[in-house]
């Protein structure tokens, strides 16, 4: 096993959880077996091709046409080896599936094309976007769901991956034993910016984590609506389609929107966009499609509270 690990460890990413080696052991075993079988096959085929090459037309060839003994050998041995691999994989999977009872829960919401992580402290919710902060050496369980289409949460260095499904709660757990930042990927195709749906796991010492959480909780109570709106602009994913710079993206830029005359693909124009117009655009975007754009925005009904709509409207208003 040690030799296999030396030979093939270049194929796998670093291990940052205690459970990673459980998977890696199986990986090394199968790859060792595969390499052996492939080399043997290769040698035998090359040997036969050279040894039994056609020297002249019509030469005599062997007459063996079957061998029950051989057939049994190469049926039974692969069966045993293959089933053993499946059983080994299953028993390892069991360990990886079930989180310890005391695991620290973090909620994860996937949506096109961002990850939002939520923590609870003293009844207050703390959210981060694309940054999953976790304490080292503590079992963490992620409770995940999706707001729109399928996504999948994958951290190669932790050897975890699970689909994130609308209407369903799925979970993964891990105990990271290495400080530092680790890349996560969305591994289920989810549209345009699937390959940009990334996040980072920051593994930090326990005290640092606790301090960070308390600071965040304190900050969220004192901020003004438009500052909170600025956070929502990122968290609710408006950022993937709307810029703040005046340059249009998938949707129109928010810069200077309030007070501007709006024209639509169909229907009467609006002379000056106001708070109500913004509210309508968020809750029923397909009713008025801004001229020159595609109906790519989905309604946020049920995904934003009135309070939040107010906050983001204040934020948009503040952009001149």
């Amino acid at each position: 096993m040690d030799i296999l690990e030396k030979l093939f460890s270049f194929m796998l990413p670093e291990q940052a959880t205690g459970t990673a080696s459980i998977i890696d052991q199986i990986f090394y075993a199968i790859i060792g077996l595969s390499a052996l079988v492939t080399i043997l096959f290769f040698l035998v085929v090359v040997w036969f091709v050279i040894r039994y090459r056609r020297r002249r037309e019509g030469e005599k060839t062997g007459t063996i046409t079957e061998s029950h003994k051989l057939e049994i050998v190469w049926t039974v041995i692969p069966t045993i080896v293959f089933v053993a691999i499946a059983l080994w994989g299953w028993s390892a999977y069991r360990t990886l599936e079930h989180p310890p009872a005391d695991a620290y829960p973090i909620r994860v919401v996937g949506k096109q094309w961002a990850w939002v992580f939520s923590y609870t402290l003293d009844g207050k919710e703390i959210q981060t976007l694309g940054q999953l902060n976790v304490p080292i050496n503590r079992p963490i369980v992620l409770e995940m769901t999706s707001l729109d289409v399928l996504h999948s949460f994958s951290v190669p260095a932790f050897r975890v991956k699970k689909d994130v499904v609308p209407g369903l709660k799925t979970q993964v757990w891990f105990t990271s034993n290495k400080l530092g930042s680790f890349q996560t990927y969305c591994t289920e195709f989810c549209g345009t910016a699937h390959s940009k749906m990334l996040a980072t796991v920051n593994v930090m010492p326990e005290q640092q984590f606790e301090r960070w959480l308390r600071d965040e909780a304190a900050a969220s109570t004192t901020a003004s609506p438009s500052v909170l709106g600025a956070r929502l602009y990122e968290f609710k994913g408006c950022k993937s389609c709307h810029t703040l710079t005046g340059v249009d993206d998938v949707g129109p830029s928010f810069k200077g929107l309030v007070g501007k005359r709006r024209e639509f693909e169909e229907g009467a124009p609006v002379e000056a966009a106001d708070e109500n117009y913004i509210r309508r655009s968020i809750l029923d975007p397909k009713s008025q499609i801004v001229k020159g754009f595609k109906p790519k925005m989905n309604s946020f009904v049920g995904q934003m509270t009135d309070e939040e709509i107010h906050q983001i409207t204040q934020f948009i208003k503040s952009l001149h």
Partner: protein
Amino acid sequence: MEVESNYLNHEKGLKSWLCSVDHKRIGILYFIAVMTFFLVGGLFGLLVRLELLTPTRLFMSSDLYNKAMTLHGSVMIFMVIIPGIPAVLGNFVLPLMIGAKDVAFPRLNLLSWYFLMFGATLAVLAIVLGGVDTGWTFYTPYSIRSMEAVTVILFGAFIMGFSSILTGLNFIVTIHQLRAPGMTMMHMPLFGWALYAAAIIQIIATPVLAITLLLLIAERLFGVGIFDASIGGDPILFQHFFWFYSHPAVYIMILPAMGIISEVVSTFSRKTIFGYKAIAFSSVAISAISFFVWGHHLFVSGQSELAGAIFSILTVLVGVPTAIKLFNWVATMYQGSIKLDTPMLYAIAFIGLFLIGGLTGLFLASMATDVQLHDTYFVVAHFHYTMVGGVVMGMFSGMFYWMPKITGKMYNELWGRVSAVLAFLGFNVTFIPQFIMGSQGMPRRYHLYDPKFHAYHLTSTIGSWILGLGIVIAMIVLIKSFKKGSVAPVNPWGGTTLEWTTPSPPPHDNFAQIPTVTSRPYEYN
């Protein structure tokens, strides 16, 4: 010198081709169609690889990349490798091989070609209407919300399914009813067995895909709430339906290729196939087991652990009959008289690449390792080893093998061999790096990627050019042999099956007199 009457000069004019019910001419129609689709699908594949030359955007937007990747997959799967071997070579060769004058239902055979063309037209329409970006797997709910053209391509795939069902049905009846006198099932060449096993899957599994696609269309048009969670549906149900077809479907693709390898290895070793019964029955075993393994695509979807474990064990079991075949082919070469002509080179490439494809399947069948590898480039590489290393290599092996029979001319052997060597090398350069970066976590279907994977992607893209060159050369050599080339004898390779007893190219009704079979196939000494 007077040219003998054969199926090519029997009648003249475009109409005599488009309305022909001769299985050989229909085989040619399929050949033209499938090769055209292959070029289109290949072009999309090369474009995808080219875009991935750099970690950042090269010349495509993400939307365009997603469309190119979807079209590469859909065209290759539904329009090239599903119809490829059965409809082109199966059509041409099967009746000749079993000593029949045609398939059992010649007109249905022609209809199935038109179904394919109709489906293909819809696919083109979908491209014109703006393209499709769901991936060839059409996973819900993304495929419910994505652009309009999705409905069109879904309907296209639905129609093409009928083509596949009808071909399968035709072959099953042909094999049961039209074998030459004296040819028992156990005297039938192994390509026949392989087509038979694949046909069983075609007629049982394809209707499930058809229903699934219809449900998805209904969901898109009327919002019935079957797959869309926001209106009470279950998106994972779609994956079960989809893979209930699509896993067996990979055996629709690979079984006929395995049949070709059995023919070619025996002929070019001048030796009776080793373990005829084992090979024949393993084909049927593969098609039976293949229906019960679909859940291996759902290990990380939230499927229950027990279900996962059962699917995992059943999945490794499907590897056993596959292993049996590999062993028997190599054993056939023992004490043979081996000649490395182009078909044999492709067959040996098949054996090597398919072996790797099969072994890497073990990583994905074992639940624990699948957690790391699922939806990464490892899966992409594994799939291409079985589908390109397997099906496409097998298809070219068969095409070079039977081309002298089909055209009556010999193809250029040197360039044929060059194509095989280039394709083999290019293939490995393309896909070995993908195993490595996949294991390291590089997800599939990514337009932009982490620069740490750049070296692997770069190598892979360069490999794709070598592979592409090999395949283009192969196509040119094959197509040229219709026009130029020395006259092919009745039996250029010294084959023992019945198609080598009738002139090249065969006369309109195949045999002047239906042969009577008294011995097993593959008797050499």
